[in-house]
């Protein structure tokens, strides 16, 4: 199989995400805005912040995945691009995976890169920064994969946003648990391995499900 279709679908999706969301400004603004509200909602005592901060960022990441993915496959369905992709000999599952990765790299990856900054703001001990970045990276990727399945299933639903959340959130639970533990315990603990395993599991299972759902949406 040729690599060009996969490469092109990645480029197209990144450009779509970039142009639709004012580039990196939107995700960075989203995460920073969420972070800014936390001290005002929950108190600014340093020990409270370092307890609550990572959890808030997990929620922000989960919300970012849901909000971003709502439009991804729906737009493809409405502008007719989905028809063209489904007819390609390149497996639609791979194209869907590529698109999901592209949107994660625009809307999920910024949180990973900004983690040291948020760590400072939330009085998180510096030695947990690296595990936190790894956890947000893997966890965010898993959120986007399961969110992508939910989004592909509801692509033909006119106002699919709430439906996507209802379908995807139960599937986010293991990642949230293992990811939250990884931020606390670091790489030494088995939680990181479980997080890695659940990400690999999602990488294996989610793409065929997205492919089947997109074929259905195009039908």
């Amino acid at each position: 199989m040729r690599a060009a279709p996969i490469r092109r679908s990645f480029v197209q999706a990144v450009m779509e995400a970039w142009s639709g969301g004012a580039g990196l400004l939107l995700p960075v603004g989203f995460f920073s805005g969420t972070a800014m509200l936390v001290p005002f909602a929950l108190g600014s005592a340093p020990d409270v912040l370092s307890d609550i901060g990572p959890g808030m960022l997990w929620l922000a990441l989960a919300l970012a995945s849901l909000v971003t993915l709502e439009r991804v496959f729906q737009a493809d369905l409405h502008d007719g691009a989905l028809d063209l992709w489904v007819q390609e000999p390149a497996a639609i599952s791979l194209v869907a995976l590529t698109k999901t990765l592209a949107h994660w790299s625009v809307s999920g990856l910024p949180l990973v890169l900004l983690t040291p900054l948020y760590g400072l703001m939330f009085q998180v001990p510096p030695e947990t920064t690296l595990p936190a970045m790894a956890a947000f990276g893997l966890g965010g990727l898993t959120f986007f994969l399961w969110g992508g399945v939910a989004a592909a299933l509801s692509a033909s639903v006119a106002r699919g946003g709430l439906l996507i959340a209802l379908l995807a959130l139960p599937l986010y639970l293991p990642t949230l648990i293992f990811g939250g533990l990884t931020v606390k315990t670091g790489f030494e603990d088995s939680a990181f391995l479980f997080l890695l395993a659940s990400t690999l599991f999602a990488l294996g299972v989610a793409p065929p499900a997205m492919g089947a759902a997109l074929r259905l949406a195009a039908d």
Partner: protein
Amino acid sequence: MQGHGLGAVRGERILFSGLNFTLGAGELVALRGVNGAGKTTLLRQLAGLSQPQAGRVDRAGRHHWISHNNGLKAHETPRRHLMHWARVWGSSAGIDEVLTMLRLKRPADVPCSLLSAGQKRRTALGRLLLEVRPVWLLDEPFNALDAEGQAWLGTLMTDHCARGGAIVAALHAAAPITPVREFTL
């Protein structure tokens, strides 16, 4: 391309059943029928987008698919759209020549969200020129085109059939082209 005993159901309503369809080289078949008769559904089954509820479709070679929503992304310009699919298909067609033929030289770098319906339709039709494929499946291809565009597309379709290609198109009776055969649903 052949369809054997095709059937389609929407909800509980049977659109068509036991439908046999043959398309030979050089043929231009016009699909006719009232709104809701299943023209688009039949085209989508021939294209492999819809699973027939009954029967099967045999295809020889690849086809081009032009639907009423053109397949353009809002952020793409006509040039980017054509370049994108040329690269996906590994086609070496000259994008500038294609844009000239489509008379899209001037708006070639304007995002599709700002183009008129006719310009969007021309951009989508440009995909037909990127790669030679024996079968074209067109859903109301003349929609949104001006008189000059309609004449150009008519010639393009006739030429394709003259070279041994085949076309199935959902067409209004007013379309400026004479089909070889009509197929009424």
